[in-house]
């Protein structure tokens, strides 16, 4: 096992533990639980094997589901976001030549923010849709998606800047 895959595995485990032990219990304003484990999906290298990545994102979502007794909503949302990621990368960073090798290797703040916002909002929308699973709760779904997305975005942005500092030094 080389150092990059070791780093990958440790980040995976750290994200799952952080989410389950800390962020699932946060309940900001009574109902907002930021989903920081998406950091893994975002940080995973962009030009890697897509098949492996789909599997990994499924396992990530499934672990979160497994440890927080939430049925399959995390799995579905994370798996879908993993599957859609290449598309989102192209949308956020432009044509093929400009795509960076990984998220923190790029310095264009706007593109990075768009990428983050896309991944987080789609994931949250899917997640809350499957949690409520009812058309009558559409207002609740949208409200939760919006608020949770904002907090996830802030936390993940913070985390990524820490990560960058850590790697640069």
């Amino acid at each position, binding site marked *: 096992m080389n150092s990059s895959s070791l780093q990958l595995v440790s980040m995976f485990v750290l994200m799952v533990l952080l989410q*389950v*032990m800390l962020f699932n*219990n946060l309940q900001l304003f009574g109902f907002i639980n930021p989903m920081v484990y998406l950091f893994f999906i975002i940080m995973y290298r962009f030009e890697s094997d*897509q*098949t492996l990545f*789909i*599997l990994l994102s*499924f396992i990530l*979502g*499934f672990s979160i*589901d*497994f*440890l*927080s*007794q*939430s*049925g*399959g*909503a995390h*799995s*579905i949302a994370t*798996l*879908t976001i993993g*599957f859609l990621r290449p598309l989102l990368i192209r949308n956020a960073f432009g044509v093929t030549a400009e795509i960076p090798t990984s998220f923190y290797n790029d310095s264009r703040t706007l593109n990075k923010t768009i990428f983050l916002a896309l991944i987080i909002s789609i994931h949250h929308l899917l997640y809350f849709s*499957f949690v409520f*699973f009812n058309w009558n709760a559409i207002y609740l779904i949208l409200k939760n998606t919006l608020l949770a997305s904002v907090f996830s975005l802030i936390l993940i942005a913070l985390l990524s800047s820490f990560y960058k500092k850590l790697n640069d030094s």
Partner: protein
Amino acid sequence: MKRILNALVQFRNPILYLLLLGLSFFFLDNKSSFHQSQLEKYGLYVSQNLYRVSHQIGNYFQLKKINEKLLQENKALKELELKSKGIPLYPSALKVKRRFPFQVKTAHIIKNSFLNQQNFLIIDKGAEDGIKEEMAVITDRGIIGIVKSVSNHYASVISILNQDLKINVRLKNSAAFGTLSWKGKNPIDFQVEDVVMNAQLEKGDTLITGGMSSYFPLGIPLGKISEFEHDIQSGYYTISTELFEDPSQVYYVYVIENLDQKEINELKNEQP
């Protein structure tokens, strides 16, 4: 055959995605059905151990809140308990819908004393919380005193550890009644006087409030008989008793109000 394999390899990502999506839906479906899936039981087992430490830490900080909540719950239960104990006093109570004229409030003792012969204590509820003079103060295993004066947010209470305070008590097993007062030394040593000789007594019998004063409802447990002697000349027992709860070491108390007190006092005053 080869073309099928080629197609499989070419579209492996969408196929994998759909497969896993189906699996996720399967789990979601299992979740919503009545029987929890076996898998979640294992998940629960793992996460229980994971959570245990964080819960233990979290619980510690919530203890105060939980205590307050339990106190509220106890208040409701106390009311019911007092109600049920009053039934022997009004035997027809089971047939008709009966009034229960007592109301329970909760309070904390913020100052307590037991060194003097006339002790007073202060509770953190006052006129604004509906505390009035002459209300009774009790705990779950005994009585504490009677409210003497009230300010906006506090009230001062004549402690049961006050030799001027005499409380009407009776035995749990027989209807013989007497008067409880403090001996003035140890905070749990009390005496009961004026119990008539023909009552049957035994060591360890439980004393309860008698329900004859308008302050305390019938049936609050107080203590048990530790010793008794009969005074042949006067024809009364003198009983030494030990309280169940040390009144000098109480923090949470209930204040009970007799809604009929005014009515009773009026009748008392009418008598010549």
